[in-house]
């Protein structure tokens, strides 16, 4: 078996973040289609939530390799 634990961990992080982003997009799209006049507000909140979810993956990618025991 080749590869290391880090690659597996980053894969799991990507999986979770993809699920989170999908949920945000799903619910935002549903809200927008139910209430088209609220699109502006929903987009703002959606982008903020995107940013926070995305940060988790970036933290995983850039912080965990430094914290791994060599």
């Amino acid at each position: 078996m080749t590869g290391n634990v880090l690659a597996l961990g980053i894969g799991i992080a990507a999986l979770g973040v993809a699920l989170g982003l999908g949920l945000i997009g799903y619910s935002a799209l549903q809200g927008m289609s139910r209430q088209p006049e609220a699109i502006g507000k929903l987009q703002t909140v959606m982008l903020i939530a995107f940013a926070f979810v995305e940060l988790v993956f970036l933290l995983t990618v850039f912080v965990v390799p430094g914290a791994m025991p060599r």
Partner: protein
Amino acid sequence: MSYAGLFIYLLIVLAVIFGSMAMSKSGLNAKVIKNPIAQLYEQLYLFIENMTVGIIGGHGRRYIPMMMTIWLVVFVSNMVSLFFPAAPSGDLSFNIALALVCVGYVQWEGMKANGVFGHFGHFAGPKLGLALIPITLMIFVIEIISEVMKNVSLSLRLFGNIHGGHEAVVKLNEIGAPIYVPLGFFLLPIKFLTCIVQALIFTLLTCVYISLVTHHEEEHGGHDEGHGEMAHAH
């Protein structure tokens, strides 16, 4: 990247910003603005004004210049990453400096809006009794930590997106090397999208932080109005 290299890329960013703004100033005396660059800047101003006033509220109009500056700097230094192997916002030091400026500006505006003690008292949460002093202290410490983490989150997000885009392009080029196809080229549209979205998010989050810090200044009429609107929406 060395600091000299970073400085050269920063000079490119500044040259683009100041050059395009100087070009947009020509022909401003005419009744109708026909200069395309000026029209572009007008649209950008409307966009930023919409965002700032929409998030912060009516008194947010005075933060537009800062938001505009942040948007321009972040966006242009993101755009540099489309044409060059490195970019100012692809370097963590530049991003940390930018985030420090933004969070420091938020503190400054909070102190201006609420007074120094009001601003730091804001960190301590709601006014509890004297018996609950430990809880107030804990809330204060947690709020200070979250204030510091704002720097980290702002800078690391921008750095991760831009640097990650570069890494992805390099890896795709390696994959396409045996068949002589620069596969990384096909990432350009999504990198362009990332440029816009990251500049937007950086500005948006600064707006949100400012609105969190300065919203006590308004009387509660606007607050109730917002609630009524939400209730109406439901």
